[in-house]
């Protein structure tokens, strides 16, 4: 049970993130929902990389045959960087839209139709 705690957290975070993205109308809050979803994925990747009794893959510390593969950490780091770029782009879109439309409510950002 305790072993599964990180994965249960992933499911809960995913659910919170999805509800936020689907139910909120404020663009900033939608972005926060996306960020929560990203955190869920990052937690998922990091938890996959955990091995009980494993040694961190630092060459000077670990015996050379017992290290944990550092791949999930590398993936998570990449994913965090991509997440930052995503947030920056969506926030800049929100700024421009607020300037042009005077609102960040997605129900009012609907001039493209048909």
């Amino acid at each position, binding site marked *: 049970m305790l072993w599964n705690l990180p994965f249960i957290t992933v499911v809960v975070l995913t659910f919170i993130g999805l509800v936020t993205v689907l139910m909120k109308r404020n663009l900033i809050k*939608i972005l926060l929902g996306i960020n929560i979803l990203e955190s869920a994925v990052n937690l998922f990747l990091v938890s996959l990389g955990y091995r009980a009794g494993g040694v961190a893959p630092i060459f000077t510390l670990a015996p050379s045959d017992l290290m944990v593969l550092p*791949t999930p950490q590398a993936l998570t780091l*990449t994913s965090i960087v*991509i997440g930052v770029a995503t947030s920056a782009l969506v926030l800049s*879109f929100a700024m*421009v839209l607020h300037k042009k439309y005077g609102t960040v409510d997605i129900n009012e*950002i609907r001039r*493209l139709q048909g």
Partner: protein
Amino acid sequence: MTFADFIVINAPALLVAIPLFAAFICPAVGRISTTARNVWVMGAMLLTAAVAFILAFTVFTSGTVIYVFGASAANLAVPLDSGGIPIRIIFTIDPMSAFMDIICAIAGVSVLMYSLSSESKNTSLEGYYALFLLMITGVFGMVSTGDIFNFFVFLEILSLASAGIIAYRIDGGLAVEAALKYFILSTLGAILILFAIGIYYGQYNALNIAMIAQRMQFTLLDRIALVFLVAALAMKCGAVPMHFWTPDAYSMAPASVTAFLVVASQAALYGLFRVVFTLYNVTLNCLVVGWIIIILGILSMVVGVTMAIPQKDIKRLMAYHAVSQTGYMLLGVGVGLAVLGNAALTSAFGFTAMEGGIFHIFNHAMYKGLLFLTAGAIIYRIGTRDLNKMGGLGHNMKYTMIFFIIGALAIAGIPPLNGFASKLMIYESVYLFNPILAIIAMVVSILTLASFVKVFHSVFMGPKLPEYAEVKEAPLPMLIGMGILAAIVILFGLFPQPVVDMLVAPAAHALADQGGYIASVLGGA
């Protein structure tokens, strides 16, 4: 080692490295002068295209090329001390990838040529070209990589660059709205893909596509991962019912970019095919998954074309047709997938259906790119995109009109243009699978023709309108860009058989042959 050898061996890396490097240097070069920037951008694109052709030639003459980053030899996928696991990032370019590389190279060169004059009136073009080159990087990376996490990274590069470039001309906020819609959907899709990658890694300790494919067990978790990947990639390629971003993004992006966004969508389509054919292949229930893809295709065809007919905005209309045409590719390849496990049916019509679908990817990129570029030329000259305000432009824009006719007849599948060549293959083979599907496909083609006849009539026919009496023909670089695509549309329509034999059939066979893909990376069969 001579310079030529160096290029040939490192072609897969250069394919991504050249546009990436050029993109980030572009703003600095732009400080010198406009001409220097144009030369820099065009030079980088031509160089990338040349590398892509060299690479494709190598692949089609001597088989799949693999490139291992950071290894002592470029083709050393599995180092001796790694215990049989490919630990490095590997690019795997099989004939299907090479086929997509060719599409991207041709579309990139002609679209960039066109941009040089269509965007010349606008300011701050350094960022525009930088984003464009990043899109090129993203597409080449997606279609060349043999590593699923790498695929995700290039997909995100492509999404970020595309969203930025769609929003580039803010256009009173409308372009930003379109980009926002596209980008939020893309991000959600990317998160799903990352979840799927985590599932594979947790089960198989591998990120290399060949390695995962070899170890594939098709457990419950793999089914979930399959659903995530298919949903995300079908959304990225604009299949109904996840097509909402397509008309907005395609119509609000600058015309030249739209022509390339079509290629970007097809890179996602390539990803979808790669997942179902190379990652899973016969381990999944081919009939069910095949039918899911067929139904996505049929829905895209029908909904796309019916939504296109009432549109008044010329680019929005063409965007709905792009959705509709994507349906043909899904239909053709879906039929190929549905009969994949059955050798008799596969050789009877499965391969023809797949070849038709894959050939249609190429043809679609060419004629749809051409149509978007003609629409861009019209908008560039008269400044409106509303069909009701256009008319009589055939008097002044003769070459644009001829290019439009070529594109419109090709999309409707009229012989002897390339759209007919691939659609005929799809009709024939799908008819043997299920006659109703083939009939739907033909009806959609007729509706497409009807819709384009309407556009042609309202844009080019009729008397000269007084407000457009002074309209001139599109500038020469734009005509050259359109001319390249139009020439390919005609050439491939007149001589489809050599193209099918040389490019399309190897691509279809490479896609269906999972064992060959695995063997090319991991060695042994």
